[in-house]
């Protein structure tokens, strides 16, 4: 691609990450296009929902005609396999490849090959530490900041400006975990309050998060507020199991968490839920097509954080009390015309059978 001046196409959807982001442009091609999704591993609900969203979005009337072929592979956590799959799709003459990178580094070779062949490579969710490709993500640092700000605000409302906080972190070594935690601590440090933060590692997984939270409560007694990167339903479970009083909590967008907040916010479970949406895949696909059509695109596309706090929760709109806990509630991005509701497609066949 060539580096061009902004602004890019459809800025409400493809919002540049920051004002100083550069723009990229590929030679325009005529569709329909061959597009591939190279996923990492699939053993959790978020990824399954993401794959289903991608498949559903590829059938969306808005873009269906622009796609000649849409192929999805999942390679596991294996970096060479993922790089190999991307290279294979380049060799097969695909026009665009969207991917969730298994590692923020190591894509130099495929980036080079993609450029040589004018293939649009779009990492999203787990993005790369490079500005050589167009990427789509939510701002993890901002997510961390918003979480911390919310908790501090709720505590301040209750008259607390110091105290003990629990931070449940994600997978060690992952950049998302790092950025979210940095955001949280940035705000805490700036607040000037005497905050004692107990960190535990929950691996973004309900079971682990629940176990480590239970341990933390058993050892440290009470916390004044909680910030959990993921597995939030498990964190609240542990809270309730331990008979811990309900405190302000910031967490992910799991349906189960939102259900719990909706049910217990009056008791003090004042929660904020911000999600990394599986719907990101749709925006990445849309961005890829836009780039293939020759539009200038921001190198780093920021998808707005889907935020819902306890005042905004509404059954059937941003959470579903009749659906299982494991779904990620936020999937739609109206400004982008992405209207595939994840929980809805996930629930489809069951709704049919019931």
């Amino acid at each position, binding site marked *: 691609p060539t580096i061009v001046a902004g602004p890019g196409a459809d800025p409400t959807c493809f919002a540049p990450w920051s004002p100083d982001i550069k723009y990229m442009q590929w030679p325009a091609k005529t569709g329909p296009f061959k597009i*591939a*999704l190279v*996923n990492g*591993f*699939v*053993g959790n609900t978020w990824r*399954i929902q993401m*794959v*289903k969203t991608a*498949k559903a979005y590829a059938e969306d009337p808005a873009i269906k005609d622009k796609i000649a072929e849409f*192929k*999805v*592979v*999942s*390679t*596991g*956590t*294996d*970096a*060479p*396999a993922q*790089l*190999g*799959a991307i*290279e*294979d*799709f380049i*060799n*097969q*003459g695909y026009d665009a490849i969207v991917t969730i990178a*298994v*590692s*923020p*580094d*190591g*894509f*130099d*070779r495929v980036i*080079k090959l993609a450029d040589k062949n004018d293939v649009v490579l779009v990492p999203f969710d787990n993005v790369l*530490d490079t500005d050589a490709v167009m990427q789509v993500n939510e701002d993890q640092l901002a997510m961390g900041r918003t979480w911390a700000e919310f908790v501090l605000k709720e505590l301040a409302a209750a008259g607390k400006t110091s105290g003990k906080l629990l931070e449940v972190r994600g997978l*060690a*070594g*992952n*950049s998302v975990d*790092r950025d979210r935690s940095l955001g949280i601590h940035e705000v805490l440090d700036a607040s000037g309050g005497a905050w004692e933060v107990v960190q535990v590692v929950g691996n973004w997984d309900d079971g682990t998060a629940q176990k480590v939270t239970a341990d933390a409560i058993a050892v440290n007694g009470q916390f004044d507020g909680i910030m959990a990167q993921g597995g939030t339903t498990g964190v609240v479970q542990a809270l309730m199991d331990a008979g811990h009083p309900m405190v302000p909590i910031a967490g992910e967008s799991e349906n189960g968490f939102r259900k719990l907040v909706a049910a217990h916010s009056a008791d003090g479970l004042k929660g904020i839920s911000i999600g990394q949406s599986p719907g990101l895949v749709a925006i990445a696909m849309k961005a890829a097509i836009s780039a293939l059509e020759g539009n200038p695109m921001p190198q780093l596309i920021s998808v707005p954080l889907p935020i819902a706090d306890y005042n905004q929760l509404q059954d059937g709109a941003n959470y579903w009390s009749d659906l299982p806990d494991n779904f990620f509630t936020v999937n739609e991005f109206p400004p982008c015309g992405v209207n595939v509701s994840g929980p809805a497609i996930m629930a489809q066949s069951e709704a049919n059978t019931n």
Partner: protein
Amino acid sequence: MIGRWLAGNRGFAVAIALFAVLFVTYNLMHTRGFSTAVLVQNANESVAIGFVAMAQTVPVLMGGLDLSVGAVMTLSACIASVMVNGTMGEIVFGAFVTLLAGTSFGFMNGLLVVYGRIQAIIATLATGAIAIGLALLIRPEPGGDVDGDLGWALTNTVWDFADTYGLAQGGEAAWLQPFINIPVPLILQFGIACLVWLPIKRTVTGMTIYAIGSAEGAAFVSGLPINRAKILAYTLSGFFASCGGLYLAIQTSSGNADMVQAGAYTLNSIAAVVLGGTALLGGSGGVIASLVGALILRVISFYFRILDIDPLLQPLIEGLVLLAAVSFGAGRTFSIRNRLELFR
């Protein structure tokens, strides 16, 4: 001659045949089948798992197991991601340190098994955790800046290699022409396998590795160097694993202390060993056979990219194919006429 070889290497022969069929079919179905680009891509993808499979094979031949191979590969990759950059001299030194580190780790495994008298399975399970811990210390977050030219040169064809470093008139030398389309990763992989393993196999210590897997007590009373062979086996395992790690770091120009990936590599290495026809009980088989086993494992996943298979059914199909492949040899179980032969 060939008949005798087939009789003695039945598993290996089956593996080669299976691989050939799978690979040729894949190329036939691929839009750019039988091209250099596809071969280079396939080769790159297979190097790390190939080395790890080789690493697993040596202890297995001895009736042991090394559950730390994936972790040692990861540790080596992390070391390489720090060390392999700068001037040519620094790069070579970095690569040397990487290989030395992995090899030493294997040596330590060997010492633990021989002098610590801990069962290999559990000793290497534990040292694997230690290796991952060290990797995380070296590289708390993924990244690194391995020399980019080196990465490009080693992950392409011989021509690209010569071109990158301006050797053999930038790859245009006449004598080089027959070789220019060979992928460098293939040369590295098979080159190291043959240059290291084949000679070792023909030393007394190397042969002792087989002898231990076959009958340890007999090997000891025959005066074979048991301890030395065991230590050598784990050391070689560490060496091959660190070759995998070094290549991985060069290929991805970075290191990533990914525990899940390390675990997956270890388990896949065992699968590759079995697919290659090496007996998990030891005594027979070989490193090259496991390389073929690893290639089979890889080729299976290639098919998902050219066939239209529901993405959410892919993991299931992958599992079923793996089960089917390892059950392949089981037919023989039913043709065994003396049931005592089932209990080796």
